């Protein structure tokens, strides 16, 4: 071992020791202090009932399938819409000026309204027009609300990606005789989309959580199913179960997004 390697190994051992000790101290404090809180026994009984947890978990998992389904059919629509809005906002053709305005208004509007509010407004408002079945379905209008909000975000992410591609790339393509359209399609967009994959991964994690908001307008997905169990059993443990299920999906997805982001940073530095 070189002198430097020995020194670094020593430093590492020391850092690990300190980190381990401080983590242990915090855990011990929590374990000792939390149960001493006056309401701890009541909280444990109503939030952490092992028997209820085990009994309701499979049904919650089944209900979560609906969340995943709503998520799965929303994503392609969100990206198609987001891309269309991003391109509309970047157009310089005077004939398409109305599209540009529309894109700007769309983004401002749907990014500015809380998702839950949009779910209520669209999910209750539009079926209220007296549409015949199946056009009054909360699945349709709930999905529309999610697509409106998230496509506005995705449009902005894509637009920042498009603008991050250096003009020299565009110049090179134009000088080869490519049309504006082909330049966008073959040169700019493929690079821009790759560059914003990590940001969009974070968007997908947020979307997966926000699907639960559709419970407010009808669909019996996981949050609503947990609410039903809560009323039935007079116990909040099903909510904890639902949280665990969300974490099982969102934690790996977030980690993966971070991994992509780091990889991208390293590749560019």
């Amino acid at each position, binding site marked *: 071992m070189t002198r430097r390697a020995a020194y670094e190994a020593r430093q590492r051992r020391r850092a690990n020791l300190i980190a381990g000790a401080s983590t242990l101290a915090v855990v011990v404090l929590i374990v000792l202090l939390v149960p001493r809180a006056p309401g701890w026994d009541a909280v444990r009984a109503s939030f952490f009932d092992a028997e209820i947890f085990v009994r309701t978990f499979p049904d919650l998992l089944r209900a979560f399938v609906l969340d995943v389904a709503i998520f799965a059919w929303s994503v392609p629509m969100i990206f198609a819409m987001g891309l269309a809005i991003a391109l509309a906002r970047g157009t310089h053709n005077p004939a398409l000026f109305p599209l540009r305005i529309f894109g700007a208004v769309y983004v401002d509007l749907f990014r500015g309204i809380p998702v839950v509010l949009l779910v209520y407004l669209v999910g209750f408002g539009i079926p209220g027009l007296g549409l015949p079945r199946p056009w009054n379905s909360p699945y349709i209008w709930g999905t529309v609300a999610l697509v409106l909000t998230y496509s506005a975000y995705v449009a902005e992410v894509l637009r920042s990606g498009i603008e991050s591609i250096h003009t*020299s790339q565009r110049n090179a393509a134009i*000088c*080869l*005789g*490519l*049309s504006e359209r*082909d330049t966008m399609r073959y040169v700019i967009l493929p*690079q821009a989309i790759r560059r914003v994959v990590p940001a969009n991964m974070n968007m997908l994690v947020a979307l997966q959580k926000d699907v639960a908001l559709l419970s407010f307008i009808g669909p019996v997905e996981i949050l609503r199913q947990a609410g039903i169990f809560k009323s039935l059993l007079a116990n909040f443990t099903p909510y904890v179960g639902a949280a665990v299920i969300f974490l099982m999906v969102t934690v790996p997805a977030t980690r993966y997004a971070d991994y992509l982001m780091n990889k991208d940073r390293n590749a560019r530095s």
Partner: protein
Amino acid sequence: MPDPRLSLRGVKKSFDDVSVLKGIDMDVAPGEMLCLIGASGSGKSTLLRCMNGLEPVDDGAVLLDGVDIAEPGFDLTPIRQRIGIVFQSFNLFPHMTTFENVCLAPRRVLSENRDSLHPRITALFERFGLAAHMHKYPDQLSGGQQQRVAVIRALAMKPQTMLFDEITSALDPELVGEVLDVLRQLRDEGITMVLATHEMGFARELADRVCFMDQGVIAEEGSPDQIFSAPQKIRTRQFLASILR
């Protein structure tokens, strides 16, 4: 002299308040190789970019085979197939292999299909010693190799005229030679070439004519021997003295 391939008449260009080109007149004959020399900021790059319409000129005319392509509103897309340009910073498309880089424009613009394109492009790669690198990505290649791919990419459009904007300036010194060799090869093919360059030895060896640019005008032009051995203007002498140290 035959009709010039490219003629510039009173070309002017400013960026904001800075006047970069102050009335350039120039003729380039078919098959001629013309070198633009001059200090950084003298307007060489801007002049090249005006020749293919990448920068719109403010005033004056750029005639390609007698047609004024600087006419405001003129559709440059078909013109760009006839004038290739290679940049200092290569500007390869990083998400495509070198082969895809070269094939993109012929496929989309000339509507050539993959089958007819493949042998033609492969031959180009072989000719410039890059056959082994055809399916690599640009970041897997050295600067010199990337720049040669950029030349191939421009050549694949079968241009009559090629513009080179200081294509060796971003390269490590030991890689400059391989790129200049490519230019030597092109020189023998009768492609009209205009180069902005700092490679004085190269300009002296191969150019038909050398233009010295200074502060937005062509201060002096002539054969390489004239410019390098017997420059007439003081500014030319000063520039050459500073370059050759």
